[in-house]
Each structure stands twice: as structure tokens, then as C-alpha cells.
């Protein structure tokens, strides 16, 4: 029986129908024994709100208390170690501050106080204060007033102060880069213009959490979690980046300028995990402690829009533009996009695409076929078509 066009089309439609039935068929949802959910949900939600409010109260009390106890301000930056910090930790802190002093200005535009304390606070009755998101927490009070100071409060968890890894974490390159956070920028470049501040406020200062950038931030290359490392193959870098970014963030990293515009400039956007929270107008609290950043498998389940290196964006801009050009950008009253283009000569989105290529090993857009697979496919297709053509050329038309 010859395969006439009508038969071809009928066959194709029939096979598509089979494929649709197979792929769209849904299993029967399993019945589960349900009880108490309303009670537990209510208690969990109330506990979560209480825990968040208690943590903010503690931070606000701490900042208030530190400010009232600090000696009268000078024009220089300072660091202060509370008496409850153990001597061994104090030694590490001196080392750390000596290390980062190399990248800081001699005459700060906004003097910065870095205060180290041991957090002895206990949980609100009935809730647990796990510190699961870090044993070295930082909070930043970024002044809005000319003549003000920037305050960095570094809290060491009491529970871990005798742990060696805590101090190793404090001396790691990542901690050195992140310690000053947003205060590093205002210390070097002064208070940002209203336009830049509005932009940063709208995104909770998430791109400004890494400030000290005397050397380039390294590209992201995390290990694949052991529980995903099977003989079917380790995850490709592309797939890891997909997992660690939002959809739009990934498209931006893969070169889509329109998506970069959305990620970078849409002030009302709240997509992806949040690296930090801005609250009470001037307090920036990062989600993760200094010891948690870039460690282990955080990226596996925590995906901010621009991925794990999103917090280095502004420091990389500062490093690549150079001090003077970045300062002009920082103080410009024009829109972020215009101010950036004036200094860099390219749009912010174009620059971010280049940055993402460096940080995330040039991710690819859309589903892809490896070159060898594509070559094999083309060869098979060419052989098949060639054979069909050769056969067809010899056919007699009856």
C-alpha cells in the first residue's frame, strides 16, 4: 500500500493523538488521612510571625543599644569588639579587620563602625532560635543623612563561639568580601544619589552585599550535591545555573537583554529568593550569615533572581568601572540606566550579560543538543535522505 499524502497525514494525526493520551493522562490522586491541619497550620503561622517580629525587635534593640553606647563619633571608621567576645575570637577579628583595611579608604566619605558581639539572646518562649541560616550574622544600618555613620553589627552565635570552623569561616575570602556589605560602598563613595538609592531600596540592596572588590569575585562553580550525583551523570553547569536562578534571571544570564532589563530595573518585581531585607527604611539584613554564603548546597534550594553571584554585581561594576567612574555613577541623579550608560558606554543589561558569562560559564538559552548528538543526527538524516533520493531517481512512474 503506497503512503499517499492523505495517508501520511492520517498516520501522523493518529500517532499525535496516541502521544497526547499517553502524556496527558493523570493518575488518580491518593487519598490521605487528614486531621488537625487547621490547628497546626494556625500555630505554625502564628509561630513564624512571632519569630520574625522577635528577631526584628532584637536587632532593633541591639542597634539602638550599640548606638547609644558608642563613643562620640570621629571622622574615621572604627571597629569595636564587645567584652563578651572570647579572646581567641577577638584575635581572629583583629586579623580580619587588618586584612580588609587594605581595600578601604584612608578618609572615609561616610565613617563606618563595625561592632562585633556575641549574641546571647534566647528564643521567644515557645519558639526555637535555630540559627540555621548562619552562625555569623550581619546587619547594616545604612545612614540616609549627610554627616551620619554607617553601622555594621556582626553577631557571633553564642552556641558556636568555641568552634574552630566559625573562625575559619570568619577568615575566609568570602567573609572578607562580604563583611562590610552596603557600608563598604557608602564608606568609599559616600551616600548614593536619590536615584541610585531608590533603585537599591527597591531590591533590598541585594546586589550590594559584597563590597570589598580589590580582586575579582571568582566564577561560580559549586559541587553537585551528593544526593544528585548518580551514574546517570553529574549535572551540567547549565543545569546548576538553571536551578540556582529564577527563569527570567537565567534568560538574562544567557544573553536576553529584555529579561535583564526586567530583572534589573523593574522596581516592583518580587521574584526568586531574597538575599536580604530592607526594613525600617535604612536597615539591611542579609538572609544568610557570613559563614553560609557560597557554602555547601545552598544554591540547590535557594535561588535568587541573579543566582548565587547576584550579590557581587555592584562590587564587580565598581571594580570594572574604576573608582572615579563608579563614583560618578553612584552620585548621578539621572536614572540608573542612563547613569550607567554614561560611565560604562554600554547599557546595564549588556554589561550584566557579560558579567553573567564570566560568573556562570556562559549559560545557554533554551533546550540544547550537544554538538556530537547534532552531528550524528544530521549524518543519519543525510544518509536516509540520500538513500531515498537515490532510490527515487531510479523509480519508474507507472
Amino acid at each position, binding site marked *: 500500500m503506497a*503512503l499517499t499524502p492523505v495517508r501520511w497525514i492520517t498516520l501522523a494525526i493518529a500517532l499525535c493523538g496516541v502521544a497526547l493520551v499517553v502524556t496527558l493522562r493523570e493518575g488518580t490522586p491518593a487519598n490521605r488521612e487528614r486531621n488537625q491541619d487547621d490547628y*497546626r497550620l494556625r500555630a505554625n503561622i502564628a509561630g513564624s*510571625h512571632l519569630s520574625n517580629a522577635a528577631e526584628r525587635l532584637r536587632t532593633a534593640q*541591639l542597634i539602638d543599644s550599640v548606638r547609644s553606647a558608642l563613643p562620640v563619633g570621629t571622622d574615621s571608621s572604627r571597629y569595636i569588639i564587645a567584652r563578651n567576645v572570647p579572646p581567641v575570637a577577638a584575635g581572629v577579628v583583629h586579623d580580619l579587620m587588618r586584612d580588609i583595611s587594605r581595600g578601604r579608604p584612608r578618609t572615609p566619605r561616610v565613617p563606618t563602625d563595625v561592632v562585633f558581639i556575641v549574641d546571647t539572646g534566647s528564643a521567644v518562649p515557645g519558639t526555637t532560635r535555630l540559627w540555621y541560616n548562619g552562625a555569623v550574622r550581619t546587619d547594616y544600618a545604612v545612614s540616609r543623612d549627610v554627616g551620619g555613620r554607617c553601622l555594621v553589627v556582626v553577631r557571633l552565635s553564642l552556641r558556636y563561639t568555641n568552634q574552630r570552623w566559625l573562625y575559619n569561616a570568619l*577568615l575566609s575570602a568570602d567573609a572578607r568580601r562580604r563583611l562590610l556589605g552596603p557600608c563598604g560602598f557608602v564608606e568609599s563613595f559616600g551616600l548614593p544619589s536619590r536615584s541610585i538609592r531608590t533603585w537599591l531600596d527597591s531590591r533590598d540592596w541585594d546586589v550590594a552585599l559584597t563590597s570589598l572588590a580589590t580582586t575579582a569575585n571568582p566564577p561560580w562553580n559549586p559541587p553537585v550535591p551528593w544526593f544528585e550525583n548518580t551514574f546517570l551523570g553529574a549535572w551540567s553547569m547549565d543545569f546548576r545555573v538553571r536551578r540556582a536562578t529564577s527563569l527570567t534571571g537565567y534568560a538574562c544570564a544567557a544573553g536576553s537583554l529584555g529579561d535583564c532589563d526586567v530583572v534589573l530595573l523593574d522596581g516592583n518585581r518580587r521574584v526568586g529568593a531574597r538575599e536580604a531585607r530592607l526594613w525600617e527604611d535604612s536597615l539591611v539584613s542579609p538572609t544568610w550569615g557570613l559563614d553560609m554564603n557560597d557554602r555547601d548546597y545552598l544554591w540547590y534550594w535557594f535561588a535568587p533572581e541573579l543566582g548565587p553571584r547576584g550579590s557581587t554585581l555592584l562590587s564587580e561594576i565598581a571594580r570594572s568601572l574604576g573608582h572615579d567612574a563608579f563614583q560618578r555613577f553612584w552620585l548621578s541623579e539621572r536614572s540608573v540606566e542612563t547613569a550607567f550608560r554614561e560611565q560604562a558606554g554600554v547599557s546595564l543589561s549588556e554589561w550584566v550579560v557579560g558579567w553573567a558569562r564570566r560568573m556562570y560559564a556562559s549559560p545557554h538559552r533554551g533546550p540544547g543538543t550537544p554538538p556530537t548528538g547534532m552531528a550524528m543526527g544530521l549524518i543519519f538524516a543525510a544518509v536516509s535522505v540520500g*538513500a531515498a533520493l537515490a532510490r527515487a531517481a531510479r523509480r519508474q512512474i507507472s
Partner: protein
Amino acid sequence: MTRVGMLAVFSLAASSATGQTVSRYQRQVDSLTLAWRGAQSALEANLEEQRVTLALRDTLAVGPLHIMVSPRRRALAQRVAVGALASLSSSYGTSLTLLGRNTFAVRDVTASDGDGVDSTYVLVSEVVGGAQAFRQVVLPDSAIVTTALRMAMLRALARSLDAPPRQWLSATDLPFDTLRAPDWTNARLQLLSSGAAVGQRCYNEDIRACRLALLLDESADPFVDLYDAAERRGLVERMEESGYHRWQGRSPTGCTAGDDGECIAALRGLGTMPHPIRSTHRRELVQVAMAIGGAGAMQRFLSTRGGIDARIQSAAGVPTDSVVHAWIGRVRGGRKPSDDMSPAIAGFSLAWTLVFGAMALRSSRWR
């Protein structure tokens, strides 16, 4: 930058805070505490109702096992205890009588699922002095509960070992069965990627190296015997990245520049040593001894007094070196061919090509 000495400020009492913000958050916390307490009381009252039903208990004796059971799980507990004992008796033999000193529990429990929904499961645990030494919450399915109970039993048996063999095993439980082919593939990959030269030497069937790597023999100078110069430098560099030596007040810069003597000195100063190969390989060795020794192998492993060498020899019934030799043979045999292209993939590709080619040849001219 100025350093302002030690500051005695941080008695963080609420009374020291004066800001408006602090007062506002204090009011929020007070009001949320009331709401949370109310929700918690309602939840606890509801849970108490459940507990009254779940707390009913009975005692069940199966062979050497004493099991506390919920009345409605008695039949399930009986069934799984018989199954668990049967699955272990061939290898563990009379050692299972040691379990007569332990108390296990198989009972109902209500647990909260991830989405805040509570469901009834079965709790399998071992009760030691009123506390739970092992606790696993599983679905009320015979096979799953049997696995959990067997794990509890193997943990209890592991605790009956003296400290040295227990530490050598680095495991909280004893093996249940010998390894399957995919496990050996995994073992091969882990040994080859151990990051210690001794692992590679062992893979090349150097039995002395295997004994060192498996911690059957103690090394007089582990960082020299187990690692080569490049690995030692790598270890020191990794410690440098984490700031370890700077914290210690000395930075072995000579080591990173290539001075192996300084690397060795820096590593010796650690006072501890990372294990050259994974502890799972030691467990594999015991599983090979189980396979060679056949019936009663783990019974002999547990009852033999002395070091780990003597226990493995007794379990297998052959010298430990023969067991090590068999182990490395299995590891080497775990090679898995690449599945980038297999005969099946090639066959399917060709078959599809032929199908489409044949269909193209059957096709009429489209005019």
C-alpha cells in the same frame, strides 16, 4: 581606621532601648505572643485527644525480641519481627540473642507532613533507659516496617561491639547483606577518586597499601605513607583557603611554593588526619567477609575477641589479606562501561532510520 578597644555595652535589656521602632516591635511581639499561645493551646488540646488513643500499649515477645506495641499494630509487629529475625538469622545466628537486652517499639504515631497535614504512621524505635536510641517513622507497610525494625536491631548489635572495632567501622549499624553489582561500581569510583595516593596504590592491588588505606595497619607517618607531595600541597592549600593556619598564627608559604618538607610539617601539626579513603570501604570489607564466610559469618565477627583483623579472619574463615584481596578484586570488577553509546542505542537509532527510510521508499510522489 581606628580600633576602639573592648566595649562593655552589650547588656541588651529592652530597657536600654529607647527608639520608637523598638517600642513598635515590642508591641507587635506582645500581641503575636498572645495569638501564638492561643493557637498552641488549641493544637495541644487536639493532640491530647489523639494521644489518649495512641498511648495504649501492649508487650510482644518474638524470639529474643521484646517489643512494645500499640494494640492495633500487634499483628503487624508480630509479622515484621518474625520477618526481620528470619532475614538476619543466617548470618548473625546466635548473636541475635544479644537483642534480648534491648526493648523495641512498634506503635502508632501521628506526624505532621510537610504541608502541615497530620497523618498516622508507624513509629519503629529502640527504647534505652526511657529514651529513644533509634527512631524512624514509616508508612504502615509490612516490608517498610520490617526494614526499619531490622535497622534498629543492627544498630543495637553494633553497640554491642567494643569501642575499637565500632570506631573502625565508623557506622552506627552493622551490614545486613552482601553488596550488589551497582554498589561495587560506586565503590570503584569512590576508591579511584579518594584523593590519596594510597587509594590508587590499593586499586593497583598493593595489599600493603590497601591495609593502610583500610586502617587495618597503623602508619608510623600517615601524611608521608598515605599521600604524595602534590596531595599534601593540595591539603595545605585547602586549609589555607579556609584560613586555618592564619588562625594558628603561622602560614606555611613555603609549602604552597613547593617545599614538601614544610607541607609535611604543617600537616603533622594538625594533630588529626583526614581518612585517606571513605569509611564505606571498611564496611564493604566486612560485607566481603560475610560473603566468603557464609552462614554464621557475622556471629563469628561479633563473638571473636581481639582486633578487627582477627574478627574479619574469623568471620570469613580465611586470612584477612585474602579478604582484602577479594575486596579489591570486586572493586576492580565494578568497572562500568560508558553509556554514552550502547549497542541498544545504536540498534534503536538504526532501526528507526530503517523504518523512516522504508516509509519514505513506500511514499508516492507528492505532486
